[in-house]
């Protein structure tokens, strides 16, 4: 008898004749999911798209080693395999061979038409896809046959292999006449696709049920293109349990096979008999950002010695080892150490208060009244912008505050509710904050650190670095790109632009009966190989 049955019996203790919650013989994977998702279209959802990806597949996905791998594409085009060809005018032709014999869940064949349709949708001005601009380099989408797509790009874009993580079924988005495609706006608002009734994909699972605010249920796709033996699981229930404590207890109660928890909760689940904890290195670095878009920011942080002094005053080893209970590792740069693009040989800023004070003196900041340093009657005091509700970041902010107090720098907190915080952040009206990004497997960091980078709100700008970053974005092969990114990481550390605090981890609690799980820390998540997962029957 399996565990669920036992616990369900306990629930119904004393209630004779009640039905068992688990239908006989079905293998059901129960996931305690940390968010209540908004909609299933992977391009317009504002959540990470684990659930969509059980039903919807794309040309590519990412594996546990931060690599892009082909799914609906037979292989990823590269210059080496001859599928990427440069033209004399600087444009590129990329040929994507597609898997044959793939059918949508409703039986319609998947073809190159669907891929080109997806491109037209995402690149459309109203698609609101978060990385829409990355698709704008594609000039044309050609379909030489049903199983080949050829994109013509107007230049070299290193991130090309990370696009099309989902493909939309063109036939679902036809107007009632059956011949014209819906407009982009109509697709965005098409409820049957967003909500499940017609969320057809090519993936291992088919949509079954969505109880708003409670769960989404998907069932095995019997006609999965990888073979009838896949997937081995009959059904997945994604139960939405947004509260961190509740989810922890739910996992402890043994009724779930899978769930993400907080790094500081790891010790509580280590002794669970039914599950293991996997610490997944996320593509996310918790870091301390300084900004100089305001007058005060320029006055305080322009001098690189000052920035280095600040970084030396922060005890990151204790943060990782004590505050985070050793679940995380100190980071030294923005790129995940698991990624082949990571550079481990960069300038580091060990905790050293004497060095910090020396640098501040050197930069002309002398100790003033009240233990706060001064220079030209300017006190060294600034406001750190905290986002309300992010308890862990506010704890880090307090460590930074205390460290800087020790070297004569005053930090005052201002805490704002999330949306208000976002507004202030985007407008550059701040001097310092603790923050973190969630990056794709693609190692491009131009958006964060280039002068005009879309997500560089700090006001730091270095034309020389811009050149390196730009070249790294145009390098199509690993061999060409890696040295450039190594150089950029070294330069960033040297300039002390931001202080990486630690590499974020996502602890994932996975039932011992789950086989085939290979956790991934990219923004595509850990369910990328669900078709290989199995549930082992356990006696009991």
């Amino acid at each position, binding site marked *: 008898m399996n565990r669920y049955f036992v616990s369900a019996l306990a629930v119904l203790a004393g209630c004779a004749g009640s039905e068992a919650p688990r239908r006989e013989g079905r293998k059901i994977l129960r996931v305690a999911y940390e968010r209540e998702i908004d909609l299933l279209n992977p391009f317009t959802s504002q959540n990470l798209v684990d659930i969509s990806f059980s039903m919807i597949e794309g040309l590519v996905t990412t594996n546990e080693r931060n690599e892009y791998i082909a799914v609906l594409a037979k292989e990823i085009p590269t210059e080496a395999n001859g599928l990427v060809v440069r033209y004399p005018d600087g444009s590129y032709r990329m040929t994507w061979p597609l898997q044959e014999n793939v059918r949508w869940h409703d039986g319609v064949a998947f073809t190159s038409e669907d891929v080109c349709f997806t491109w037209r949708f995402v690149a459309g001005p109203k698609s609101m896809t978060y990385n829409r601009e990355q698709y704008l380099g594609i000039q044309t989408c050609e379909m030489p046959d049903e199983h080949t797509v050829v994109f013509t790009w107007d230049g070299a874009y290193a991130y090309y292999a990370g696009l099309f993580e989902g493909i939309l079924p063109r036939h679902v988005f036809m107007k009632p006449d059956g011949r014209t495609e819906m407009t982009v706006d109509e697709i965005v608002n098409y409820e049957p696709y967003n909500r499940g009734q017609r969320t057809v994909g090519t993936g291992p699972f088919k949509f079954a049920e969505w109880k708003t605010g409670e769960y989404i249920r998907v069932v095995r796709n019997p006609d999965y293109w990888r073979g009838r033996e896949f997937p081995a699981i009959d059904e997945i229930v994604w139960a939405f349990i947004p509260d961190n404590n509740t989810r922890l*207890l739910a996992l402890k109660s043994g009724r779930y096979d899978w769930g993400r928890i907080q790094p500081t909760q790891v010790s509580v689940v280590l002794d669970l008999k039914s599950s293991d904890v996997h610490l997944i290195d996320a593509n996310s670095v918790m870091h301390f950002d300084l900004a100089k878009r305001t007058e005060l920011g320029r006055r305080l942080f322009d001098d690189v010695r000052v920035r280095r002094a600040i970084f030396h005053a922060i005890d990151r080893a204790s943060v990782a080892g004590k505050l985070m209970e050793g679940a995380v590792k100190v980071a030294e740069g923005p790129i995940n150490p698991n990624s082949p693009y990571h550079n481990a040989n960069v300038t580091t800023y060990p905790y050293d208060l004497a060095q910090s004070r020396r640098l501040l003196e050197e930069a002309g900041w002398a100790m003033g009244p009240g233990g706060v340093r001064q220079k030209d009657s300017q006190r060294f005091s600034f406001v750190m912008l905290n986002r309300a509700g992010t308890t862990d970041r506010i704890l880090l902010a307090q460590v930074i505050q205390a460290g800087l107090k020790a070297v004569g720098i005053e930090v005052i907190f201002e805490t704002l509710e*999330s*949306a208000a915080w976002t507004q202030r952040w985007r407008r550059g009206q701040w001097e310092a904050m603790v923050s973190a990004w969630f990056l794709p497997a693609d190692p491009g960091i131009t958006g964060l650190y280039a002068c005009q980078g879309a997500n560089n709100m700090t006001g730091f700008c270095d034309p020389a670095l811009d050149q390196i970053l730009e070249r790294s974005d145009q390098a199509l092969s690993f061999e060409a790109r890696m040295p450039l990114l190594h150089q950029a990481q070294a330069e960033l550390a040297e300039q002390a632009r931001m202080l990486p605090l630690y590499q974020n981890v996502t602890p994932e609690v996975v039932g011992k009966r789950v086989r085939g799980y290979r956790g991934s820390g990219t923004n595509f998540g850990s369910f990328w190989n669900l078709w290989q997962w199995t549930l082992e029957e356990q006696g009991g």
Partner: protein
Amino acid sequence: MGSYVARRLLQMGPLMVGISMVVFALIQAAPGGPEAVLLSSGRFVDPSVVEAYRVKLGVDQPVPVQYVRWAKTALTGDLGVSYSSARPVVHMIAERLPATVELMGSAFLLASLLAATIGFASALRPHSWIDLVGAGASFLGIAMPVFWLGLLLQLVFAVQLGWLPVSGTHTVGTSSVRDHLAHLALPTVVLASRYVASWSRYFRASLISALQSDYVRTARAQGLREGRVVFVHAVRNALAPVVSVMALGLADLVSGAVVTETVFAWPGIGRLFVQGMFARDYPVLMGILLMGSLSVIAFNLVADVVYGLLDPRIRYD
């Protein structure tokens, strides 16, 4: 009484228009906009997408213009489409409301029973040990934060004893009533505990004054039996203030159960509201708030009518 109720009902129209304007202005005045959602998962987002999003939703327009546009469609019964889920707000509310009403209803029943028992017992014997224990127990309910009490109960009854489920409304794949009630038990207790303290204290206070009032003394002097005095005269008079507090509690459909719903992953309207607020999903917020205001006004009217019935000396004119 009839004309009083009619007048109050007539006032509801202008009152709702006023509330909708205030609320619309208020939620728009909160800094930050719906574009914050685009950035909430921590992914890179193109700034052009952020701007286009604002234009598409129309939140780049002046607030009065947006209000008029919203009000026009709202008058036809269409509350608009949610920014974040692209679904009609009416559907979203309709899906969530039953769960909240069920939870509030069961908590209300439990809380009334407990509050009546505690309040009654302590008023009859003020300062006795029964009173002390009753007060202590009911104060646990308000002085203990909801998330704390909830987790404690989950820890004991779900994790340690395994008698009840941790969260949700039912075990997926079953539709048995018992299973559903097992899921309802803990959230009901937690939510009820919030109300017991205040209701029982108000009931106790007004019952004590009623028992010492002239008419009860008169009734006693006239030789009426104690039981009859207490039940018929005192309780009836003591209920009026309690009824108004209870009405306020019941009317608080929107935010009354937010934390309980979150802790127990209960798919109610409160969670929808809080998510909507953080996402600045204005159509969803307006829809929920209008419904909430309507329930506040309606329950307060009911409460006013109820005291008129309880206490014949009160006349409305």
